[in-house]
């Protein structure tokens, strides 16, 4: 099984510069070392020498054992965290400060509790001084199935509704890159599958609608991977999860990170399952099971390693 899916060597075939031009988000040799402020001798290297590229329109998942620095990697890509070493490029340009081409969906509650759902979705547009923010927010709320809930405050919404609001909040800005940090991990399995399907639907159709009705088309000419052969621009997604099933069901490519500290990619798998997919149905197809087994073979040892380390530390 693994023979048919050899873990590809990372970035070996292209020269870095050429890759960068064709990537939405590119991390080169990124390392992050945290220093304990009270005791500078205590250092912790979360990720070490990570090189990761996400092509425009590509859905990439990063899986790894808990505590392996997946979120750190995402924060680096978002510009929220400056790496200790290495470069980050966004559409070929070095990243300085916050990554303005990216939207970020957080693992924990990130909605502003003092704003209604609509006001939350509007927030980013408001910050940019967009005039028809309210209409656009309403359109996106409808799109995520919350048409009648715009006036509710986050605490009046269920967990799934809050996640959908957060999704609308991120997507209303029409980012070229979506960074997602285990966005559905707090949801129950049914809601989660619903949300995963919704995400895939929106991702598949995002370009079409956003270019005519919701916002001006992006000037950036992005080729994208020829999933559907269409001209519309899909968003690049970097999806962090510890759930291998979720990763395979959603992605074009799954990257496996080693256990921390100093975690780094140890395997990369192209997911060639046909789209459109239904995340519940795709799980029982033979190809999915093959892929799952192949990736799990690589991941299992790291999970055990990570578990042993945590036990040791405790």
């Amino acid at each position, binding site marked *: 099984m693994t023979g048919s899916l050899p873990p590809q060597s990372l970035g070996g075939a292209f020269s870095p510069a050429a890759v960068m031009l064709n990537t939405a988000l590119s991390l080169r040799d990124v390392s992050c070392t945290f220093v304990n402020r009270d005791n500078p001798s205590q250092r912790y290297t979360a990720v070490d020498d990570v090189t990761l590229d996400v092509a425009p329109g590509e859905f990439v998942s990063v899986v790894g054992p808990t505590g392996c620095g997946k979120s750190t990697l995402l924060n680096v890509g978002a510009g929220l965290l400056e790496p200790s070493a290495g470069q980050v490029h966004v559409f070929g340009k070095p990243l300085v400060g916050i990554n303005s081409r990216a939207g970020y969906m957080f693992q924990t509650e990130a909605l502003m509790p003092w704003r*209604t759902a609509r006001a939350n979705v509007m927030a980013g547009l408001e910050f940019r001084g967009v005039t028809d923010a309210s209409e656009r927010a309403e359109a996106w709320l409808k799109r995520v199935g919350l048409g009648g809930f715009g006036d509710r405050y986050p605490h009046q919404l269920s967990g799934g509704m809050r996640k959908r609001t957060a999704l609308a909040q991120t997507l209303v800005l029409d980012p070229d890159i979506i960074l997602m940090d285990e966005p559905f991990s707090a949801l129950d399995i049914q809601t989660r599958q619903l949300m995963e399907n919704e995400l895939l639907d929106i991702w598949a159709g995002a370009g079409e609608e956003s270019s005519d009705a919701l916002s001006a088309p992006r000037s950036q000419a992005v080729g994208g991977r020829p999933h559907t052969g269409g001209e519309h621009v899909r968003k690049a997604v970097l999806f962090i999860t510890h759930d291998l099933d979720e990763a395979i069901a959603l992605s074009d490519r799954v990257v496996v990170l080693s256990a921390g500290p100093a975690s780094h990619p140890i395997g990369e798998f192209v997911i060639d399952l046909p789209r459109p997919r239904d995340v519940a149905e795709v799980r029982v197809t033979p190809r999915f099971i093959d892929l799952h087994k192949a990736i799990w073979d690589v991941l299992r040892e790291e999970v055990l390693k990570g578990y042993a380390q945590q036990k040791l530390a405790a």
Partner: protein
Amino acid sequence: MRVWQVLVLVAVFVFWYAMTAPGVIPPIMFENDRQAAFFFGEPLKIFQRIWDWFFTNHDIYGHLWVTLLETVLAFAAGTIGGLFIGMWLALSPVAAAIFDPYIKALNSMPRVILAPIFAVWFGLGIASKVALGFTLVFFIVFFNVYQGVKEVSPTVLANARMLGATHNQLLRHVYLPSAMSWVFSSLHTSVGLAFVGAVVGEYLGSSRGVGYLILQAEGSFDINTVMAGILVLTAFALVLDGAVGKVEKHLMKWQPRAGETEKM
């Protein structure tokens, strides 16, 4: 429930009346049956006094107005001052580190002793009472704002930054609402203290206000008027508190209320 609450009030007044009115019951504590009335006042006369103030002589309104004005001004000034200084210190760790001991010292100082100084500085008018109320309200608001800014969820903050908020927009849309939620939750305390500042200020030296009325009456051992003044102040404080509750309910509707389970 309401009925019981009213019954308690009525019972207190009946007990008061029975113990103080001359001739109702034989004197227990005092040699003369007029002495109880002298020390504790008589409810009927107190109500008569209040009735005169409001409906016969109409002379309480001016005093009440002054007290209310002092309360509102002290509250507004203290809140604005606490808000700005609190935001500034919370967002500037260096300034916070420098001023920390001074803030603590000023806060632990018994501020009522400042009232005579303020009377000297600002005169016997409204300003000295507002100044006293300000010193009381300021620290309540200051500490709440400071806490509110410190307690902003890092995720909400990071999210706002990712949504493209500039530094000023973060201040306005993230730090300020978070701080205000803490300020509103302390609204009852700070309005109450503004009121205390106004009345104590009047009591220590003034020419108008309910505190002044009480002081005058005390000077002539008119215990009924003193009690009447206290009752009016209490009722007034309750009304203020009720108004604050209304405002709070309106402004804090985004917060989950107690008893309402938070959905996951």
